[in-house]
């Protein structure tokens, strides 16, 4: 190809190069906890997106395949029990907390604070003005924002540019930096004027609709991106493995990806952990050290399951090859990735268990 055919402008559009998105799992493709199943109470819908409800409504949230062009997944929200009159201190919202290390370059809390631009695709059966907010870690700084959904059941892309906050305390290490929230229903105590920073605790914007007040209302969101600057660049699609590894800094399991923790599972086909030779110990303890695939944000909460899916228990194997589930053996844990087991028991040859590590913000 002649050099004259190469277009120089292919290299000058620096705004769309990689590693721009501060949001993890913005395409909603990673769901280690639920494997696509719905949640109806507070918890993680898909990885990194946390639902909190303190209202009289019941919502069903799950990973969905209802998507705009060029996406595989979204988060779906359905109102199964409506709350027609949201109390002043009630709330229903979804949050992604961004680790401080990942926002240090924004300079928030200083005179050099950079603007950020939020973009996402949204679709709802309810039209009108919706709200959300950016908070710091203790929600002592709040930036309520609004976006409009003009056509029911139609995907729309929303873009919101937010000036950098020159005030407040914004964590820049391994604790929560920014909390980005979408409000589904919000009492009057927690809403503020959209479009400016405030020192008040807000979770939503004044005048926004309460989705939770409409029975059977639906809401979908995907393609969530938060980036430095005042331009919304195209959504940064990452590989599945890259996105999974980013999520595993906050949550990891020894089960295969598609197995929901707590599911009865076979040792032979699953990555269960095991401790053998227990019967050889007469007075001490035997330990297993499990190095997580990804370094955790902080020492994780550990949940172990036996092969029958009982939490806090292990499956034991005696010298005759007999398996027994639901056995407590005085497990002790220490450190980020070290688990200990003991005391030894001459009647137990070995034990197996699965493990989940939670270092969420």
């Amino acid at each position, binding site marked *: 190809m002649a050099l004259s055919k190469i277009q120089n402008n292919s290299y000058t559009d620096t705004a769309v190069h990689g590693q721009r998105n501060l949001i993890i799992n913005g395409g909603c493709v990673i769901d280690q906890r639920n494997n696509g199943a719905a949640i109806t109470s507070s918890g993680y819908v898909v990885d990194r997106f946390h639902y909190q409800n303190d209202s009289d409504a019941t919502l069903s949230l799950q990973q969905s395949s209802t998507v705009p062009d060029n996406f595989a997944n979204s988060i779906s929200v359905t109102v199964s029990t409506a709350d027609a009159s949201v109390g002043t201190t009630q709330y229903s919202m979804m949050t992604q907390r961004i680790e401080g290390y990942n926002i240090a370059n924004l300079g928030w809390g200083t005179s050099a604070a950079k603007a950020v631009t939020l973009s996402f695709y949204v679709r709802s059966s309810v039209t009108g003005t919706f709200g959300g907010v950016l908070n710091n870690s203790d929600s002592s700084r709040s930036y309520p924002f609004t976006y409009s959904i003009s056509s029911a059941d139609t995907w729309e892309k929303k873009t919101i540019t937010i000036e950098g906050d020159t005030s407040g305390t914004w964590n820049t290490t391994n604790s929560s930096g920014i909390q980005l929230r979408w409000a589904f229903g919000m009492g009057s105590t927690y809403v503020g004027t959209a479009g400016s920073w405030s020192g008040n605790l807000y979770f939503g914007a004044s005048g926004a609709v309460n989705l939770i007040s409409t029975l059977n209302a639906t809401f979908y969101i995907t393609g969530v991106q938060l980036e430095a600057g005042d331009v919304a660049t195209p959504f940064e699609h990452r590989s599945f493995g890259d996105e999974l590894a980013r999520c595993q800094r906050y949550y990891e399991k020894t089960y295969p990806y598609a197995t929901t923790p707590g599911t009865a599972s076979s040792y032979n086909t699953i990555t269960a952990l095991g401790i053998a030779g227990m019967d050889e110990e007469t007075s001490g303890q035997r330990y297993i050290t499990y190095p997580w695939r990804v370094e955790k944000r902080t020492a994780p*909460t550990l949940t172990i399951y036996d092969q029958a899916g009982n*939490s*806090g228990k292990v499956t034991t194997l005696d010298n005759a090859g007999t398996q027994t589930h639901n056995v407590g053996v005085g497990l*002790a844990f220490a450190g980020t990735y070290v688990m200990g087991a003991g005391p030894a028991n001459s009647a137990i040859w070995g034990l197996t268990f699965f493990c989940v590590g939670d270092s969420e913000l």
Partner: protein
Amino acid sequence: MDEINITAAKYLANNGENVNIEFTVDGVTMHTPLDPANRHYAEIMRQVKAGELTIQEAN
């Protein structure tokens, strides 16, 4: 604003030293390190300070 429904909490010790807290959330037994950066430990300590939860001593 991230309250967790903790229904039981008990220290677990190794060689006489408390190394973690065993607790239950919605019927699931979990273990948290004694690390303020861990959200479960932070929430347990918040509930203890508020008088909403007591941590049992290790056996």
